[in-house]
């Protein structure tokens, strides 16, 4: 490769790198700023107990058997309590598609970290409502 060509290429590479410095960085400050989640995002589930008819199609559809159904614990006349084990769940969306009675939805909440496996099992009390306890870090409110 001709020597001059190499030098010209090297200078062009240096120009690319130099011009990149003054552009806005791509990253954002995560806990305080967050990115846009489309409404189809497969995050945490919401179990609408009014429509649920305890047909356990979602339990059968789940490839990793992450949903456990408890048919005795009834709040309405025909529904059942679901226990979502988020340490096993793949967020693949097969259960939401298997449910014919619109009793199961995804929400764009994807940050589900917990310090023990038991806390990751969302029982009927947590799976049916979307509120979460407020979180504060470095003196600034995140949630």
């Amino acid at each position, binding site marked *: 490769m001709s020597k001059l060509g190499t030098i010209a290429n090297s200078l062009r590479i240096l120009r*690319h790198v130099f011009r990149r410095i003054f552009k806005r960085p*791509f990253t954002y400050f995560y806990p305080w700023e967050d990115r*846009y989640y*489309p409404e*189809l995002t497969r995050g945490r589930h919401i179990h609408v107990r009014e429509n649920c008819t305890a047909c356990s199609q979602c339990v059968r559809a789940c*490839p990793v058997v992450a949903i456990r159904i408890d048919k005795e614990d009834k709040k309405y006349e025909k529904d059942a309590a679901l226990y979502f084990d988020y340490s096993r769940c793949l967020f*693949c969306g*097969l259960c939401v598609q298997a449910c014919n009675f619109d009793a199961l939805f995804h929400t764009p909440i994807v940050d589900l970290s917990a310090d023990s496996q038991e806390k990751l099992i969302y029982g009927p009390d947590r799976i049916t409502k979307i509120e979460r306890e407020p979180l504060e870090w470095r003196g600034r409110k995140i949630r």
Partner: protein
Amino acid sequence: MKPDISDEAVELWFGPQHVAAHGWATKLTLVGDYIVECDPNAGYFHRSAEKCLEFRNFRQGALIMERLCMPEAFLAEYPYVQAVEKIAEIEVPEKAKFMRTIMMEVSRIHSIQFWWGQLAGELGLFTMVLWPWIDREYTLDAFEELTGSRHAVTYSTPGGVKYDFTDEFLRRLDLAIYHLENHLGKFKDMILKSPTFKARAQNVGLFSTKEALKLGLSGPNIRACDYPMDLRKDAHDPNLKYDQVDWEVPVLVSEEHGSGMCDAYDRMIQRFNEVDVALQIIRGLLPQVPEGPIIDPKVRAKTNRLPAGEAYGRVEGARGISTLWLKTTDKAQTPYRAKIRGPCFNSYYALKHLMPGLRFADFVLVFGSLDPYVGWWDR
């Protein structure tokens, strides 16, 4: 170590915990800086995908296939879907065929974007790791807009496609293609014209078409040796729409070695040709997407229990030919035997014949240029 190798040879494990070894281990026998013998070992990521497939019904199997190679998720899950459709003779609606082909080409572009970053990381230039991965974020946003998940897309199922094209998705897809295209020139400068990459990558990892065929290398690695082996053209699949666009199989005649040999540098140029062809296909197919249903309504009934039969699903992945051989017994909910062929299974084995004679520092580059992904050989 073979006994005839001189006694000053050093046995070095490019081991599983190594920074650049993404979970595989290779025993290199070095004499000075030269590799004398290379013995690749696999099995550190083995999750027995084939045994798991025997316990998943026909709607869940695509999930396992897709997790073998996340960067090309749309391409990796398709052999399973194709095999099930062949056995159950399910009719796929027209719109789903177009959407599948388009998303498979976008997934091919995403896989190449990911691979640029990976190879640059192995060659020490961290700038070129993050630049392609910034453009890749736009592609991932398009995936999330369409399917709801960035990597685990579970998009095509036997009988059609799960999510429909919304105009918000089309807007994000154009944004992703726009970002890729106006950075392609910059990436060509940074990679192909970089004097150090040229010094490092030329005449390294050389093999001919005959050798590649015997070793089972496929995909961009063999097309770089000017051998147009591409399943999209050779074995036309009725459920995909590659014939609606007139495009040529991207092959490359390397300027040093003539047509029939390729080295690491040519494989990099070949990836740029692949991106151009993929963009050409996407642009050709996007306006032709017809209206209509995206999934056969009675698909749940048809895929609940399948008749006995054998089928062979094949797709031209971003890394080579990935296939699935499926055998089902009469009225069983789960496959009887499923065999997965990963393209990187052979490219990792090929190191045994490609590496001897090269230097220790070239090992990372040669294997990186074959675009390895652990899921394919460890399954």
